[in-house]
C-alpha cells in the first residue's frame, strides 16, 4: 500500500468529498509542503488532539486567516532561505474562503506570495450544519436558505471566486473536481511549479449536506461537471489554457440524487433557471464537444 501524506483514521463522514480531495492535494504536493488550514470540517476531523492525519507540517489558527498565516510562513521561509525547496499551501472550505476569509485571500493574492490557496467547495457551511455560504448554488435548500411558501431556497447564484482570484492578476487559477483525480493532481502540481500566488477551487460533495447516498460522492461530483454546472477550467497568466469539454447532460441528472434540490425537480420554473446556469457556463467556456451529433 502506498503511503499517503493524509492518512486514514480521521473522523470524516463516509463519502466525504473533502477528505478525498485533501488527500489528493497533499499527495500531489509531496512531503516538502507546509499547510495552513482554516477552521472547518477538514480541520476538525483530521486534527483532534492528540491525533493528526497529517504527515506534513500543518497549522490551524482560525476560520478566516489561513491565507494570512500562510503569508507569514512564506515570509519566514524566505527569511530563512528555504522557500525554494518548500511548498506553502493555504486551504479552507467555501465559507472560509469566499466569505469570511476573502479579505485575507485577496491580501495574499495581491501581495504576490508564493502560495497555493485551495478552496474545498462543498457549497455550504457544513461544519456548523449546512448553512448557506457565498458559494451555495442558486435555489439550494440549506438550513439558512430553507424552502418555504415564500422561499425557493438560496436566492443568489454562486459567488464567482475563480474570477475574483483571476482579477488579482495572479499567474494561475483553476477549477477541479474530486471526481477527476488525475486532472486535480495535475493542477496541483502545475500550480506548485509556478512561482507566485495560485488559486485552486475543488468541487467536493458532502453527502450529509447535499443529502445524497455516501456511495454516490464520485458520481454526483462527476455529474456536476458533465452537466456544465462545475466547469473544469484552468487559467495561466490570465488566459484560459484548458477546459474539460463535455456532452452536456440535463441538470436533472445532477439534481435527482440530492435532497437539497428536491424542490426544484417538481417545479419547471426553478428547473429552467437552474438549467440556465449550466447553459451559461457551457456557452461561456465553450464546454460542448464539437463533434457531438445534435
Amino acid at each position, binding site marked *: 500500500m502506498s503511503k499517503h501524506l493524509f492518512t486514514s483514521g480521521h473522523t470524516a463522514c463516509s463519502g466525504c468529498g473533502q477528505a478525498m480531495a485533501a488527500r489528493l492535494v497533499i499527495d500531489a504536493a509531496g512531503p516538502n509542503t507546509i499547510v495552513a488550514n482554516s477552521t472547518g470540517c477538514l480541520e476538525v476531523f483530521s486534527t483532534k488532539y492528540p491525533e493528526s492525519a497529517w504527515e506534513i507540517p500543518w497549522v490551524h489558527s482560525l476560520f478566516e486567516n489561513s491565507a494570512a498565516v500562510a503569508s507569514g510562513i512564506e*515570509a519566514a521561509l524566505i527569511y530563512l532561505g528555504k522557500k525554494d525547496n518548500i511548498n506553502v499551501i493555504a486551504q479552507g472550505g467555501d465559507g472560509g474562503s469566499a466569505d469570511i476569509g476573502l479579505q485575507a485571500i485577496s491580501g495574499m493574492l495581491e501581495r504576490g506570495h508564493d502560495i497555493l490557496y485551495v478552496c474545498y467547495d462543498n457549497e455550504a457551511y457544513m461544519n456548523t450544519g449546512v448553512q448557506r455560504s457565498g458559494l451555495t448554488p442558486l435555489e439550494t435548500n440549506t438550513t439558512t436558505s430553507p424552502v418555504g411558501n415564500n422561499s425557493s431556497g438560496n436566492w443568489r447564484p454562486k459567488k464567482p471566486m475563480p474570477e475574483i482570484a483571476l482579477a488579482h492578476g495572479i499567474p494561475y487559477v483553476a477549477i477541479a473536481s474530486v471526481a477527476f483525480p488525475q486532472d486535480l493532481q495535475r493542477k496541483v502540481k502545475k500550480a506548485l511549479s509556478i512561482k507566485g500566488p495560485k488559486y485552486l477551487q475543488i468541487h467536493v460533495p458532502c453527502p450529509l449536506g447535499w443529502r445524497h447516498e455516501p456511495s454516490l460522492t464520485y458520481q454526483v461530483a462527476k455529474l456536476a461537471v458533465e452537466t456544465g454546472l462545475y466547469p473544469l477550467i484552468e487559467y495561466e497568466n490570465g488566459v484560459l489554457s484548458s477546459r474539460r469539454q463535455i456532452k452536456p447532460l440535463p441538470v436533472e441528472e445532477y439534481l435527482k440524487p440530492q435532497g437539497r434540490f428536491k424542490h426544484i425537480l417538481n417545479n419547471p420554473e426553478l428547473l429552467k433557471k437552474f438549467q440556465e446556469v449550466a447553459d451559461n457556463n457551457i456557452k461561456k467556456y465553450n464546454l460542448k464537444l464539437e463533434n457531438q451529433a445534435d
Partner: protein
Amino acid sequence: MKEFLEGSLAVAEIVKLCKPGVISAYPITPQTHIVEELAQFVANGELGSQFVNVESEHSAASVVLGAVASGVRAYTATSSQGLFYMGEVLFNIAGMRLPLVMTCANRAISAPINIWNDQQDSVSLRDCGWAQFFAEDIQEAVDLHLIGYRLSEDKSVMLPVMVCMDGFALTHGIETVDLPTQEQVDKFLPAYQPLYKLDPADPMTLGALGDPEYYAEGRYAIQETFKETLGLIPKITAEFAEVFGRNYSGITEEYRTKDAERVIVAMGSVCGTIKEVIDELRVKGKKVGLLKIVSYRPFPAQAIYETLKNIPRVAVLDRALSLGSYAPLASEVKAVFFGKKKQPKVISSFIVGLGGRDITKDSIKEIFRLLVNKERSCEFIDLKPELLKENYE
C-alpha cells in the same frame, strides 16, 4: 549611545536591534511612525527582515503567527481599533504558546471615534493570554521591548508580550534615549530557538482541536506559567541591569511610598506627572507616593500587597472603563486586599485622561485632595459639567 529621539523612532531602533525575521503591520494612528521607520530600515538594507504589508490588523497578527510558528522571531505593532480587530488572533497566539513582542500605542476606542490616548484598548484585552507591560517614558518603552523578547522566548514562558506605550505622549514625544549597541543586545537576547516549528524535516501538527478532555489543561498551563513568570521577570531585569546599566523591577515601581499616607496607583506615562506632583507635595510636608504598575499581566498581586498593606489611603487611576462596573485596575487592586488583615482604610477609584484629555498636575493634586476617608468609586476627574446638561426631552 544617547540620542534625542521621538518615541516611535526609538522603538523602531530597538526592534531593529532585536533582528526580527518577519515584520507585519497595518497602519493606524498613533502606531504609524514605528512601522514606517522599520519599513525604511528594510528599504535601506539596514534590516534584513521580511516586511509584509497586510490588508488588515487581523492579517498582521496572523502573518506574525505564521512566521513564529515557522521558527522565526517576528514583530508587529498596532493600536485601538486595530488591537480589537486582532483580538481573536491574539488569544490564538497565546493559546498556541507562540513567543512574540507587539507594541500597542495606547489609544481610545470608538465611539465617538477618537485617535488620542487612553488605555481602553489594551486593558480590554487583558484576558487574551499576553503579558502586558506599561511604559512610563520612552526609555522604559525601549527597554521593555528587549525585556519582552527575552521573557517571551524563555523556554519556561513561551507566551507573547504586549509593550503598551501611551499614544502621542510616548509615541510622538521626544526624549533623550540611551540606545544600546548591537553587541549588547546580542549578549542579552540570543537568536530565537523555537521549541516547535513547522518544518518538513520534522512534521508537526500545530493548532489542533482540544476537546473537553484536553482543553482545560491547556488553559491551566498558561495560568500557571504566568504565576512563574512573575518570579522570572526580576531575574531577567537583573541581567538587563548588568548589560545595560538600568535597573527595573519589571513588575512594579515604588516612588516615595515608604512613609506615605496617601499613594496613587497608576500605569503608563501619567506616572511621570504623578512623580512631579509628589515631589512638590513632599516639599510641603505631605506624605504622598506612587505605586507604578509595570506588569499589568501577569498581575503583580503580591507586590501590590506588600507596597500598599500599610498605606492608609490609596487612589487607583484608570484610563479605561469596564462600562457598567467598577474600573478595571481599581477592582483588581481592591481584590488583592479582600480578606487580608492588613489593608488600606480607603481604596478610591478615579477615572482620568479618557480620549486624550490632558492629565495635568492639577488633576493629580485634585485626586490627592479627594483621597479622604470617604471612599470613591469611578470618580471622573476633569469632567466638564457644561457638557452634561443636554436635555433630550
